[in-house]
């Protein structure tokens, strides 16, 4: 028996993406012993990190589906949570654009679906209105959704987990579940970071939720990975985009179509493509798709034609739609196993999963209520200590910070204006995530135009000061090491 085996926990959450972390945070309101197990070296390393970061209003999915219900409910919850947790976000609104008159009926269909699902404020607008809202966009008609917004998916996820941790939940990184045993009504989850014994399990393992379920003897699901590639511009690319602009969803596209999305910092995202791939971890980008992204995006925003990109990446959608089958739509699955009572699986949580996550979390808690004694904790803290980036502070506040702590005066990242104080704070996160990507997602170091060319040596120095030996410095854990020891010198 491992020494790490603690007492029996009430709920083990498998998967540290936005869904797992939303579930963990929702459960942390109650007097429960909670553990989250994440296979990667940080949270949000899977499906969560590779999407457009759009808070969806809920008109893209069939009314009455679980997707629609959790999306519409989640819309309100995401904004509330982002406020409470201090996660940067913006209600931008969104335009779905028809380039020609004959596409207008598609907009009417979307509006009708949205109206039926209870999406507020949808209206069809004409060309002058499009121009007024988004001067660089081209289009004949558009569906205007005033409540759509943008948020950083990984910052949101990390904040949810930090709040849960603040309320006593445990998070174990690099702890993939390798086997599941069921004895005396308890689940025994084996991981390289010790065994966890739990009364209930919530499987939020994203791309691997089918495989994780199979470990528990539940052979009910099959995930099909669909890759989506993105391109991202510099903040300084000279173009301003206020809100996401989408095409009318192409009928042959398993996604929402290649769209153009601003980030909170002012970059512009192009993508994603939607392509069924064989390998769940095949996040490679391709020359062909990059060309397609540029061509498609330029139809909605011709000025993008001459813009350069600082980064490309791909995310993988965990779809239930079999690419070789005829089905076009599969709903989210959120259910307790009949075969394994106490085991709840969330499967096929693709778009609009980011928005739906808090509503799915509430569903999970309601399901667990039948099994566990859910007593609210009086000491529950719904929020997080206020964190503000140096780059977002005004002059007086900056001067004040530096006067109090000189680490705020030492710039580590020149492109995104990140200070040493912020890098150190990121490395001291409560989960022990200490990779370059963990720093990047928490501080934006390396997300700028030099892509880490200048800040990497400095972060490598800080990592060593924080006790990480050069051989243990990785990009994102596992075998992604940067160095092979020291040179002879």
């Amino acid at each position: 028996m491992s020494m790490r085996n603690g007492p029996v926990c009430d709920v083990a959450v498998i998967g540290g993406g936005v869904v797992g972390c939303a579930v963990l945070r929702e459960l942390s309101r109650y007097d429960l012993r909670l553990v989250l197990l994440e296979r990667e070296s940080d949270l949000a390393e899977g499906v969560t990190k590779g999407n457009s970061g759009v808070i969806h209003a809920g008109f893209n999915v069939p009314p009455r589906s679980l997707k629609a219900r959790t999306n519409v409910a989640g819309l309100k919850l995401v904004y509330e949570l982002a406020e409470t947790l201090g996660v940067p976000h913006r209600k931008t609104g969104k335009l779905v654009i028809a380039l020609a008159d004959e596409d207008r009926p598609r907009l009417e269909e979307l509006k009708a679906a949205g109206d039926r699902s209870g999406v507020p404020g949808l209206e069809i607008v004409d060309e002058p209105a499009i121009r007024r809202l988004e001067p660089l966009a081209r289009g004949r008609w558009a569906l205007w959704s005033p409540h759509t917004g943008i948020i950083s998916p990984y910052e949101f996820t990390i904040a949810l987990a930090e709040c849960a941790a603040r309320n006593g939940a445990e998070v174990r990184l690099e702890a993939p579940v390798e086997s599941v045993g069921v004895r005396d009504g308890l689940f025994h989850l084996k991981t390289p970071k010790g065994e966890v014994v739990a009364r209930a399990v919530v499987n939020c393992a994203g791309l691997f939720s089918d495989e994780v379920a199979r470990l528990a003897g539940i052979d009910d699901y099959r995930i099909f990975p669909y890759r989506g590639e993105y391109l991202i511009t510099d903040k300084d690319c000279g173009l301003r985009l206020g809100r996401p602009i989408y095409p009318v969803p192409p009928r042959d596209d398993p996604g929402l179509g290649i769209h153009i999305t601003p980030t909170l910092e002012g970059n512009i995202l192009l993508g994603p493509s939607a392509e069924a791939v064989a390998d769940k971890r095949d996040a490679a980008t391709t020359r062909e798709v990059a060309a397609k992204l540029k061509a498609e995006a330029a139809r909605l925003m011709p000025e993008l034609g001459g813009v350069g990109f600082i980064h490309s990446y791909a995310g993988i959608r965990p779809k239930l739609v079999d690419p070789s089958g005829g089905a076009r739509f599969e709903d989210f699955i959120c259910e307790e196993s009949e075969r394994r009572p106490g085991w709840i699986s969330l499967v096929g949580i693709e778009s609009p999963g980011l928005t739906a996550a808090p509503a799915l979390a509430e569903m999970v808690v309601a399901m667990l209520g039948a099994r566990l004694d859910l007593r609210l904790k009086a000491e529950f803290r719904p929020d997080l200590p206020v964190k503000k980036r140096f780059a977002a502070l005004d002059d007086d506040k900056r001067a004040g910070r530096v006067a109090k702590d000189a680490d705020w005066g030492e710039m580590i990242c020149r492109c995104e204006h990140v200070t040493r104080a912020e890098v150190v704070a990121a490395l001291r996160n409560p989960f022990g995530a200490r990779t370059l990507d963990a720093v990047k997602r928490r501080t934006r170091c390396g997300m700028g135009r030099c892509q880490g060319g200048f800040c990497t040596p400095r972060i490598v120095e800080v990592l060593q000061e924080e006790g990480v030996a050069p051989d243990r410095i990785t990009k994102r854990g596992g075998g992604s090491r940067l160095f092979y020891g020291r040179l002879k010198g």
Partner: protein
Amino acid sequence: MERRVETCDVAVIGGGPAGLAAALGARRAGAAKVLLLEREKTLGGILNQCVHDGFGLFLYKETISGPEYAERLAEDVAREPIQVETGAMVLDLSRERVLKVNSRAGYRSVQAGAVVLAMGCRERTRDQIEIPGTRPAGVYTAGLAQNLVNLQNLRIGNEAVILGSGDIGLIMARRLLFEGIKVKGVFEILPWAGGLERNVRQCLMDFSIPLELGSTVVEIRGRDRVESVVVAKVGEGLAPVAGTERVVGCDTLLLSVGLIPENELSKRAGVELSPLTGGAAVDETLMTSVPGVFSCGNVLHIHDVADWASFEGFAAGERAARYAAGDRPAGTTVRATPGPLIKYALPQIVTAGKAGVEWSFRVTRPVRDVGIEVKGKTSGKVYARKKYPRLLPSELQKIKVKDAIEEEIEVGCHE
């Protein structure tokens, strides 16, 4: 509450070969209060990681290493009453020449009489040249690798492929070899090497490191760490030719695929940039479109030799000091544009009636037996002509005009 704003005559942003010289130039031209701001912890800029020989031939008439070159200039600076601040980064610059500076000593504003931009450049990255594939560890820009190897003594890999034959890539090929890291080859998309000829000879040929021209990396493979790259020949329009792909096993890919003048501060001040150089459009005094703001070194245009960046720095510093003392340019201006086979010619703007203007230029491709002409666009008058047996794009060249210039100018190369 009114706060007294700190002032200086000349503020120099950046303490590399150009900025150090600019601070000295400003002193020589009589500026009383010169402020030199460097964001790194030591002066010298990229020179500090250039431990190889070959610097100083023009400035010091001998070849020394990068750190030695930096040290000499820094010693000259130390002898002057120049206010030097290291670990101090300028985060904002306004058209009115107000700098926002952050350092461990504090965050503050400084009003400068004149400003010299000497921030240097950054490296082009993987995504700017759009190499598809996975995103593993082990992909480094050459300068980043140089920093990690030379300043932090870290072993960045075991088997490397180098894409791009820029000078840093060539220097790093030899450096890696010295450190026992195998270099499988240097691949260059163009039909000619990007770096100086002497570097091709001394860093590759002398060590039998293969240089493949007309080929590029078309894919990066490996999930966690680079496992291999796919290289291919390029054809028309530099597009990869299908069927020529081959897999080269390696755990490290170094990119030496170009340098970009780092003009984010310049943009904030409203400085007009040249699309040809990536740096400011300047007049013959190296003043930008924003009065009182001057530019020199790699932030103005990419140099192949540090000495030239320093010479530009001296000149920019002197002019900045004169501006701060009240000396204002007079008269109308004319534009100078590049003609045939010329990538760019600098200055881009000349005060009408000015004599003795010197242009820096680069050719677009290697050429032989050519004449460089500085020609009046209205009159057709040839102001200067110079013959060259051969010219390479990697070499920055200069041509001087004795007469006063009164019209739009074209700098052209004629075969």
